């Protein structure tokens, strides 16, 4: 029973009814205790059977795109929601990953998987070099610095014709293969890309539930207080930045192999802004919210044509509204409001 005491709200239940828990209570308690693991398992099962019910390649292509964005947004959410910083340049890392894989596999004729890994490591190194000076800044200045970094990378992609193919893009990136099995259609790619997305999700969930994650949450809350609790704030920020850049690069590689074609258009500053909007919709510091944010923004133009033509207006509008009324982000903001309402009511009850 000692183990079960770890949870505050339930420990009272456990100690008063220590040997009298009904099987229903036990089941509920089991679900509560393993809620994260069960949720991840449930999601994996849904995704496992999804192609059986959905064989429209267009829809599968969309869900694959969501998975790719999920990987980026998870990393970015750690940086924005946990380290409490802002980056308007993650499309640069995403693009570097995509072009890295494209150039590596086509021009240099390297095997795809090691290229992906090496590119991610190189991008992490670039992020480190950018991050060490840039993360001395904060707020608007950091936003500007990362934005500038994105513009530089974008310009290089546009202008360096011999390597990147310039504005017309880079085509002919081969699909990924695993022991002769090529991930060349939407269904096969679905399994590949969602495996990566779920793995990232799991790693991020683990991270935020650990002591390191709590240190990061403290950092997002108050830098001085976090430092007084023993969090090396400068290092932690850089580490998360590098991690999120590596995740973006990995997503970029998958993007290149999925579509076989990359062009600078996909990696401009508006993509960066969209990624930030995905984080904001899902909620800062919410790992699960990243899924929702990536899904929502990717699907929005599909639901209504007008959102496609006036995409930037709509996205900008959403961003402004959410930040005005729910600065913690849409989903987390709403959930938090509910939690606070409940707690306040309980407080009132306790006082009465």
């Amino acid at each position: 029973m000692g183990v079960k005491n770890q949870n505050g709200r339930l420990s009272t239940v456990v100690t008063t009814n220590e040997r009298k828990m009904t099987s229903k209570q036990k089941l509920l308690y089991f679900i509560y205790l393993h809620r994260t693991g069960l949720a991840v398992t449930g999601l994996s099962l849904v995704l496992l059977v999804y192609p059986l019910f959905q064989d429209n390649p267009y829809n599968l292509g969309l869900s694959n795109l969501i998975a790719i964005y999920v990987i980026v947004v998870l990393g970015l959410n750690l940086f924005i929601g946990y380290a409490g910083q802002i980056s308007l340049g993650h499309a640069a890392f995403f693009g570097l990953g995509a072009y890295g894989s494209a150039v590596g596999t086509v021009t240099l004729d390297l095997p795809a998987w090691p290229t992906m890994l090496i590119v991610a490591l190189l991008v992490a190194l670039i992020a480190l070099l950018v991050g060490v000076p840039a993360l001395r800044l904060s707020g608007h200045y950091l936003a500007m610095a990362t934005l500038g970094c994105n513009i530089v990378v974008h310009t290089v992609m546009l202008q360096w014709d011999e390597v990147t193919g310039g504005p017309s893009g880079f085509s002919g990136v081969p699909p990924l293969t695993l022991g002769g099995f090529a991930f060349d259609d939407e269904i096969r790619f679905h399994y590949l890309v969602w495996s990566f997305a779920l793995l990232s999700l799991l790693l991020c969930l683990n991270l935020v539930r650990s002591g390191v994650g709590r240190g990061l949450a403290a950092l997002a809350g108050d830098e001085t207080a976090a430092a007084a609790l023993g969090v090396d704030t400068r290092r932690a920020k850089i580490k998360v930045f590098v991690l999120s850049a590596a995740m973006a690069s990995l997503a970029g590689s998958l993007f290149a192999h999925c579509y076989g074609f990359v062009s600078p258009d996909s990696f401009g500053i508006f993509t960066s802004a969209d990624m930030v909007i995905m984080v904001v919709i899902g909620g800062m510091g919410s790992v699960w919210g990243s899924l929702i944010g990536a899904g929502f923004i990717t699907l929005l133009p599909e639901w209504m044509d007008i959102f496609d033509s006036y995409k930037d207006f709509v996205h900008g509008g959403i961003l402004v509204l959410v930040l005005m009324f729910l600065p913690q982000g849409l989903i987390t903001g709403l959930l938090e409001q509910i939690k606070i309402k409940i707690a306040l009511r309980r407080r009132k009850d306790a006082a009465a």
Partner: protein
Amino acid sequence: MLQLEGIGKRFGGLPALDDVSFKVPRGQVTALIGPNGAGKSTLINCVSGILQPTSGQVTFVRQRITGEPAHRIARFGIARTFQNIKLFPRLTVLENVLTGLTCEGGQSMCMAMLRLPYLRHRERRLRLRAMEALDRFHLTDKANWPAEVLAYGDKKRVELARATVGNPQLILLDEPVAGLNAEETAAVAEQLKRLRIGGYTLLLVEHDMELVMDIADQVVVLDSGRCIATGTPDEIRHNPLVLEAYLGRMDATA
């Protein structure tokens, strides 16, 4: 245990602290008092590494800690609370207390992402310890509340729980009873006495003379950035310098 030698701090040309020296003996409660603007909070910030003193040195258990960044000092075993409470409003009360165990939660991000069994067990132990700390401050029933809905007095207690949960060697308390009513102040005084009995060393900045005279073993008086007296509460009460500079002025305004 903590030794300050000739600490000076200037903000621009303005001296906030000037040649402050005193010792904080192990296992005792040292109170730092002085009128507003005497430099008490600045001194606490210099010890905890949030500010760097411009001169002098701080020694903690024979180690020189001047110039070390705040997180290193925290890892030496110095915890603190803040005058204007710094809780993390987004986290629950339990999570807030758990942040006080950051130093013991593991440093490696990779290990944390893999969540190996040893980390899972450690996490369980830390949670138990955090619950114990909450229990000491009678906050167990609010463990899962978001910290921002707590009443002011409860927030102060959560901050105390967070500062003590990691069993630090020295706790710096910046006005632990500011803004509390008489009843809550008495409760905090009780907690502080219990911490003292538990062997903790406390350095406390406080305006509440009654509390200071009640729980302090040693009182250090600052005035305009200078240390004007050090002694037991009784000695301080009868020190003419202090009476003139501090208590005298209070009498005049009271």
